C-alpha cells in the first residue's frame, strides 16, 4: 500500500531538479510559485507531481488531503478553470489560509482537463493573489500552453508513475467516491439561458449531436485531420470521417468550410 511519504520521497524529492526545471518558465516569468500536476483515473490510479515538496510535506502533516475537493473520482469534475474561493468547505479554506501564511501561496487557479477515463489538473499557486487573478484575466491560454509543455517534457516521469499503479483509495479511503459540493454551472442551465436569449435553433442543433460527434467536431476546429482525431480518440480514421459526415448532415452543411464556421459559432456560444 502506498503512503504519502513514499510519494514525496520517491518522486517529489528525487526528481526535484527535473521538475523545477520544467516549471521554471512559469515561476520565473509569470510569478507562479507552485505548480502541482494531478491525474486521476476512473480506477483510482493516480499521478501526482509538485515543484514544492516541502509544501506537500506540510499538506500531509496537516492532513489537508482529508478535505481536499480535488482528490476525488473523475466523475465529479468538469473541464475548465476552477478557483475555490467561495464554493469549497470551510475546513479546506482554513487549510489554504494556513498554507498561504506559511509558504506565501494563494488560492490556486486550477485548470481541469478530462479524458475518456481520467481527469487531470494543474493547480497554479501565485505568489500573490493578484498575480494569479490578473494572469487569468488576460492570459488563460498561456496556462494551457504551459500545461502542454509540462506534460511533454515530463512525459517519461509521468508514465513511470502511472505504471506504478498507486491507488488513491489507499490514501483517501472511501471518501474518494464521495462528491464534494459541485459548483459548476449545469449544462441544462446554459441551454435554458441561451434559449431565453433567442438562441433556440442553435441549442437544438448542437444538442442533436452525439458526444462522439461533438468530440470530432471540436477536434476538427482545432485543426486536426481525420487521422489526428482518430489517434486521439482511439478510433479508425474512417469512423471519424463517418462521424463528421453525420455532423455535416445534422447541421445542414455543404462543405468543411461551412462546418467550421458553424462550429466556431457553437464554440463561441459554449455549446461544444
Amino acid at each position, binding site marked *: 500500500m502506498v503512503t504519502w511519504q513514499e510519494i514525496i520521497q520517491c518522486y517529489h524529492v528525487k526528481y526535484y531538479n527535473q521538475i523545477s526545471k520544467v516549471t521554471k*518558465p512559469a515561476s520565473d*516569468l509569470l510569478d507562479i510559485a507552485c505548480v502541482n500536476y494531478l491525474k486521476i483515473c476512473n480506477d483510482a490510479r493516480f499521478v501526482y507531481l509538485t515543484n514544492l515538496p516541502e509544501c506537500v510535506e506540510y499538506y500531509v502533516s496537516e492532513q489537508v488531503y482529508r478535505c481536499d475537493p480535488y482528490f476525488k473520482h473523475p466523475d465529479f469534475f468538469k473541464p475548465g478553470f476552477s*478557483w475555490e474561493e467561495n464554493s469549497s468547505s470551510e475546513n479546506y479554506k482554513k487549510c489554504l489560509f494556513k498554507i498561504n501564511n506559511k509558504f506565501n501561496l494563494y488560492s490556486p487557479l486550477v485548470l481541469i482537463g478530462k479524458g475518456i477515463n481520467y481527469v487531470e489538473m494543474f493547480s497554479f499557486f501565485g505568489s500573490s493573489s493578484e498575480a494569479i487573478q*490578473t494572469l487569468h484575466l*488576460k492570459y488563460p491560454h*498561456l496556462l494551457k500552453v504551459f500545461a502542454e509543455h509540462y506534460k511533454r517534457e515530463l512525459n517519461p516521469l509521468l508514465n513511470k508513475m502511472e505504471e506504478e499503479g498507486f491507488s488513491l483509495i489507499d490514501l483517501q479511503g472511501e471518501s474518494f467516491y464521495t462528491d464534494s459540493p459541485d*459548483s459548476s454551472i449545469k449544462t441544462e442551465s446554459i441551454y435554458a439561458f441561451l434559449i*431565453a436569449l433567442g438562441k433556440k435553433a442553435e441549442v437544438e442543433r448542437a444538442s442533436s449531436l452525439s458526444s462522439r460527434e461533438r468530440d470530432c467536431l471540436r477536434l476538427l*476546429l482545432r485543426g486536426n*485531420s481525420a487521422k489526428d482525431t482518430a489517434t486521439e480518440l482511439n478510433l479508425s480514421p474512417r469512423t471519424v470521417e463517418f462521424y463528421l459526415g453525420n455532423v455535416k448532415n445534422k447541421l445542414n452543411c455543404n462543405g468543411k468550410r461551412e462546418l467550421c464556421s458553424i462550429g466556431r459559432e457553437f464554440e463561441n456560444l459554449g455549446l461544444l
Partner: protein
Amino acid sequence: MLTWNEIVQKYVVGHSDRVKTIAKPLMDHLRVAEFFYVRINHQGQLIWLGNHPACSEWYIDQRAFIVDPCMKHLSAWQSGVSLLEVIAPSFRKNFMMEVIDLFDFTSSWIVLSKREIDFVELFGFIGEKGSPIEKVYLNHSNLLKVFAEHFKKEMQPTIRQMERESISLADLMGKDFYSGFRTIHPALDPATYQAFLEDCGMRSQMEKAALLSERERQCLKLFLLGKSAKETAIDLSLSPRTIEFYFENIKNKLVCQDKASVFGFGRELENLGLL
C-alpha cells in the same frame, strides 16, 4: 441640470421593470442578482440602466460614484472581462464590502467592458450570495457577451432616448470625472510573453508567425472564421485574386501543404495569441 437623485429616479428606477424582464434569464439560470449597464462617451455623456433600484439608490446616497471606476472617463478602460474587486481595489474597500452584506451579493463582481473609439460600454454582473459567479467568470464569459448583445437590442429605444437627453458626467462630477483614476489592467510586457512561449517550446511557431505581413495576417484570421476568398475580399476591399495570392504566401511561409493544415496551424497561432 439633473441631480444624481433625479437621474436614478428617472432612468434607473424608471426603467428597472423593463430591465428586470430582460435580465430574468440571468437571474433564473446564472443566479445573477444585479445587472447594470453603463455607457460613457468621450465628453462624459452617461447612459445608465439597471435592475436593482434599491442598490442604485444606496449607491447615490453613499456618493459611491466618486470611487467607482465605472463612472470615470473612458481612458480607464480596455475591452475584456474582469472582476471589479481585482481591477479596482479602492472601490472594493470603500463600497463593495458594505453592499455585499447589505444586499446579499457575492464578493466577486464581473464587468464586461467594450471599449470603442469614442465610448465605453460596461455590463456588470453581480451574483446572489452563494452563487457560483466565479465559475461564470472563469468558464462561461461567452454567455455574458451573448446577453450583452441581447440586452442592447431589446433596450435600443430607451438607449436612444437617453442619448438624446444627454446627461453629462462632466457636469455632475466636475473634475472628479477626470480625476486620475486608473483601473489596473496588468499586462505582461511583450518580452516576457515572448520569453515564456519560447521556454515552453513554441519557438518555431513564433518565428513563422513573425514572417506574416499585416495583410496576410488579416486574411488568415478571416479564413479561420470560415470565410471564403470572396467574402474575405469584400471584407478587406481587395480582389479575390489578391486574396488567393496572399493565401499562397501564407501557405509557403507557414510551410503548409494544403488548406486543412493552414487551418490547423492558424488555430494554433491564434491560441498562442500570435495572430
